[in-house]
């Protein structure tokens, strides 16, 4: 059914927003206000607080940066000088004192003048300060022994190995006598002698007793 209202405007009943619409509007307004309020809280309160903290920390960092850079430079310089210090120590401690080595070797060969135990001499000698079998210095000698008794050669070997100071940096198998041969020299007394090669190989300088003590 259709109601027809023929009353003039002023007599007509005023149209009102329905409760449902009003309720909807109120609900929407509340929801929007709450969400906007929450956004405002998050942005203006939480975010700004964090941002302020970040700016503050950045300022702290900025004030510390030159000191950190100074320390970095010190650390770099320390590393460089440590390297230099180590290099010079390596240079100094890797030097083999050939005079000492040779002096001790001459003592062994001379054997306090006792020629009955062994009487050795050498035709040549070659030495290198590094690159030996054990990474250290090495000596190689073309040796002669005035006797055809091989026991004299063993005596000589024993005396080398028995000289504590001389062999302190030479491992047991660093003293090698790879055989030899008896040669005869007419006109000499005794005419027979044993010719052999003597190799002495020292340990690497970092393993020397003197460097271990440091």
């Amino acid at each position, binding site marked *: 059914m259709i109601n027809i209202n023929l009353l003039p405007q002023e007599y007509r009943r005023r149209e009102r927003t*329905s409760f*449902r*619409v009003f309720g*909807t509007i109120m*609900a*929407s307004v509340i*929801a*929007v206000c709450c*969400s*906007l309020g929450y*956004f405002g809280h*998050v*942005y203006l309160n939480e975010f700004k607080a*964090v941002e302020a*903290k*970040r700016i503050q*920390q950045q300022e702290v*960092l900025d004030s*510390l940066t030159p000191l*950190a850079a*100074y*320390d970095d430079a*010190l*650390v*770099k*310089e*320390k590393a*460089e*000088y440590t390297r*230099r*210090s180590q*290099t*010079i*120590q390596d240079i*100094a401690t890797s*030097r083999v004192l*050939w*005079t*000492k080595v040779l002096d001790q070797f001459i003592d062994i060969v*001379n054997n*306090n*003048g006792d*020629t009955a135990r062994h*009487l*050795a*001499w050498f*035709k*040549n*000698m*070659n*030495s*290198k*300060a*590094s690159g030996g079998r054990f990474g250290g210095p090495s000596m190689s000698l073309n040796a*002669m022994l005035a006797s055809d008794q091989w026991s004299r050669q063993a005596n000589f070997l024993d005396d080398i190995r028995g000289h504590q100071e001389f062999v302190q940096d030479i491992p047991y198998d660093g003293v090698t006598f790879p055989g030899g041969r008896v040669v005869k*020299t007419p006109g*000499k*007394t*005794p005419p027979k*002698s044993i010719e052999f090669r003597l190799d002495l190989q020292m340990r690497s300088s970092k393993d020397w007793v003197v460097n271990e003590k440091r």
Partner: protein
Amino acid sequence: MAQMSEKQIMLSIALSGLVLSGASFGGVYWTQGKIAEEQSAIEGIDGKIKQAKAKKVRIPQDEKDVIILRENVGEYVKILPDSGDLSNYARRVNSLVNRSGVNLTQYIKQNVTGKSQGAFGRYSYSLTFEATLWQFMKFMNLFESHKRFVAVKSFSLTAGSVDPDNPFEAVRHQISMVIETYVYNQAAGGKKPVTIGAYNSKRDILREEIYLARKNIKVLKYTFTGEKHRRDIFIDPRFEEGADGASVENPREVQRRIEELGNEISALLNRYEKAKNEEIMIERYAEFSEIKKVYSKLRAKAEELKELQTLDRHSLIYNNKIVLPLENLAAALDKNRDSADSWTLTQLQGNLEKMQDMLVDGDLISAKTLYETMRDAGLEFKDERGKVAEIMEVLYEKALAALEFKSLTLEMRGVILLPKGISIAIINGKTYQEGDAINNDLYLKEVQREYVVFLYKGVEIAKRR
């Protein structure tokens, strides 16, 4: 446009509210993202701050380390030659050549293969020379003990041969040697050292630690003390046979003589050790006196051996068995002479009395020996013992004069005694009055019935007729 129905209005209002709320939540979501970013940035900054703070805390320690290292590297490198030293290297080598006596024939600066070690430039030189073993050792030692670091990298020695026309001349060997050193370049790497505020005062505070750290580096050196009577190990020590197959000086015989003399010296040393423990001082010094006599004989024998041409082949054993023990014995005997200061006044007076008794008893030889033994041990005193020693010396001279007098031939045939006048004695067939000179040193002083008194070298001596 048609009017919206209530439903439509409600829907549009709800939708608008929803959109606006959604936009707000979108804003919240975006803000949360920004907050997360900021927090992440804060975490990053915090980390950096933590690191920076840690570095700030480390600064004093790092400054300290750098100062110590800088100072010590500066000190360490003093062991290395500087560029000025390198320019003078040839001069330096020449000086060492002169000091050692080697004959340098070649000196070449080598091209260094391999990299230099950072701030340390490597320099290498090759030397070729002729030298005896001992010259070579000295030459090498001069490099190794040089105040600026030099390392002998390698060497090779080829033994020289004995000159048959002059077999006892020192043999020179052919030697080549490579030496190496380093030069420090502080500016290597082009980095400027960090400027440390108040460096000098900080360095002064750390002086002790700098000194302690300096101990980490020490260049070991060795002092070569020379030949020490050892034979050259690069010379054939065997001897040449003579034309008839026999050696001029048989080395075994030389060695036997050395050992024999060595044994005699050793026995004398033992005797000395025993004598040292003798409790009676006079006997101790009497024994020392005997030992000195034997020592002189052994010394003469040692000198004889020294004349042997082949002694250099036995020089080590000669030195060890003869020279050194003789030197030790001589030093010990000298020491005893010095220690004679230990004579006490009582001992001296006791010996003086003993000497007087000996002279009274006519035991001239014992008195002489006693004094000589004491004199050998030393009788020079500046205190009151000196007076006693002087009296003993006078007695000794009297004893000597008496001994000499005893050896004179004085034959007394008779005397003429004149109690109120000058008596006469017939000596060696001649007549002498009291006061007459028999010779330059001898006078007739007094004539008695039983004896005659002579004055010999100022000493009165009574002789029985």
